[in-house]
């Protein structure tokens, strides 16, 4: 341990609790959502699925005369053989059967739509209430303006920050106490664009809510477009999480994990390559 390093209280209890509720509910929503998707593993653009145009994405399976099942993913008219992962994968007996996403990534692992919906429509409430609580908390405690909104100086340093990220050079010492500008923008985009779109497009699939304000879902291209956008936003969230976890690992896995569990983050005393203000 470097002399002069010290533990600094980085995350408030409320943020830590909401972070882990979010992790749990987002994971369960993704996995149950993929099982719901498997009930009809195709995506369309438009008001309905049957418009005369083919689906924009289809995870299908074909079977030859010997009973061998091949998984085929068709995306915008391009076909890919994806046996074992998409379109066809092993069931609990180890036989390759037709299914959109494989069982190891779905809840439940079998083609049980009713149960997948139970999980999804329960944790959707957990996720939404938690998300609204986070936004309310961030505004009320000024977490949003103090910690998440980029300063004017940061806006000007975006180019440098991109270069630093690509070289895996991350702020150290005192500078590591604040979120960097790319991190801030990523969090803001997820919290205020991707997640609201994800939730809204989920609600847009509800026929009852579609009747609330006449034709509102057409603003997003129709109900089947909403389903496609819901799916796309979910994978944008997955991409964000992969980058987020990668950054957590390369900037000090245990230090970061501890700061999101106990709240305490170790600030090293060594000089940073970027002078603190």
């Amino acid at each position, binding site marked *: 341990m470097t002399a002069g390093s010290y533990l600094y209280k980085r995350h408030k209890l409320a943020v830590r609790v909401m972070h882990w509720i979010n992790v749990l509910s987002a*994971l*369960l929503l993704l*996995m149950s959502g993929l099982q*719901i*998707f498997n*009930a*009809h593993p*195709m995506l369309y653009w438009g*008001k*309905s*699925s*049957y*418009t*005369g145009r083919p689906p924009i994405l289809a995870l299908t399976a074909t079977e030859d005369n010997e009973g061998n099942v091949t998984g085929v993913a068709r995306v915008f008219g391009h076909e890919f053989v994806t046996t074992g992962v998409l379109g066809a994968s092993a069931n609990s007996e180890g036989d390759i059967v037709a299914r959109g996403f494989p*069982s*190891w*990534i*779905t*809840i*439940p*692992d079998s083609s*049980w*739509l*009713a*149960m997948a*919906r*139970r*999980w999804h*429509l*329960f*944790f*959707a*409430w957990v996720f939404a209430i938690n998300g609204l609580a986070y936004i309310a908390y961030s505004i009320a405690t000024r977490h949003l303006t103090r910690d998440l909104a980029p300063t004017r100086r940061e806006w000007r340093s975006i180019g440098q920050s991109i270069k630093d990220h690509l070289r895996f050079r991350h702020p150290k010492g005192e500078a590591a106490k604040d979120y960097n500008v790319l991190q801030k923008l990523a969090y803001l985009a997820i919290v205020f664009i991707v997640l609201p779109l994800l939730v809204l497009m989920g*609600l847009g*699939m*509800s*026929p*009852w*809510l*579609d*009747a*609330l304000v*006449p*034709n509102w*879902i*057409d603003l997003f291209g129709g*109900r*089947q477009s909403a*389903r496609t956008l819901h799916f796309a936003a979910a994978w944008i969230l997955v991409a964000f999480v992969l980058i987020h976890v990668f950054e957590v*690992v390369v900037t000090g896995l245990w230090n970061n994990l501890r700061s999101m569990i106990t709240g305490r983050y170790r600030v090293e005393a060594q000089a940073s390559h970027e002078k603190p203000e």
Partner: protein
Amino acid sequence: MKSPNERRRFVLRAAAGFAALVTAGCERLSRSEWFPKVLAVGESLSSGAQHLISPRKSMAQEFSEADLSPQFRSNGTSMPNDPGYQALAANAFAGWALQVDGLVANPLKLTLAELRTMPARTQITRHDCVEGWSAIGKWTGVPLHEVLALAKPQPNARFAVFHCADPMEEDGSHKYYESIDMDDAYHPQTMLAYDLNGATLPVANGAPIRLRVERQLGYKMAKYVMRIELVESFAHIAGGKGGYWEDEGYEWYAGI
């Protein structure tokens, strides 16, 4: 200090183990007695919140002819495996009559010809299947409130139960049924449809009549309706959950 390779292998193995743990744990919870009851809180919340913010007679979106699906998809039963039904179908449902009974002051029977002379409504609406697909069709039929006006439900009637001709088991048992509450029963778009896309409703889509409940998912919209029974509770019918798919674990409230 471990080599980066070892560390990577450890992290990957930990991730795979975590995924296996999550799916195995969720599997056990899904099959437990208590956990699905916790999950069912979601259905109550969704139903409560959606009813709270929606006017009782909020209208489902209606579309134009240009939006019609080239062919309206038939899902589930396409020909009921029932000799009685097949005999009626062979005779263009001339011998068929809709029975309306239960908690009504005036139990009645209506033939298809009689239904066709009653006030009709035509609507182009979207059919959303619980599986995820949607199809748009033009439906013509008798609004259910017209039929209820003749039958005169008693004040204690809380649900309309639709008994259907199609057996859901190979042995001809477990005939399809569904139920809706009185708000939905009196909704202007709730109808007994006898025409689809300007032609007589095909057997594959539920002939002679199918229910339309436009603010809910497709499985609420019973096909091959033979009898409407008004009840105070559906606990005594079949599995007691208010519908064939509800008895199989699907939500009774299918507005989401």
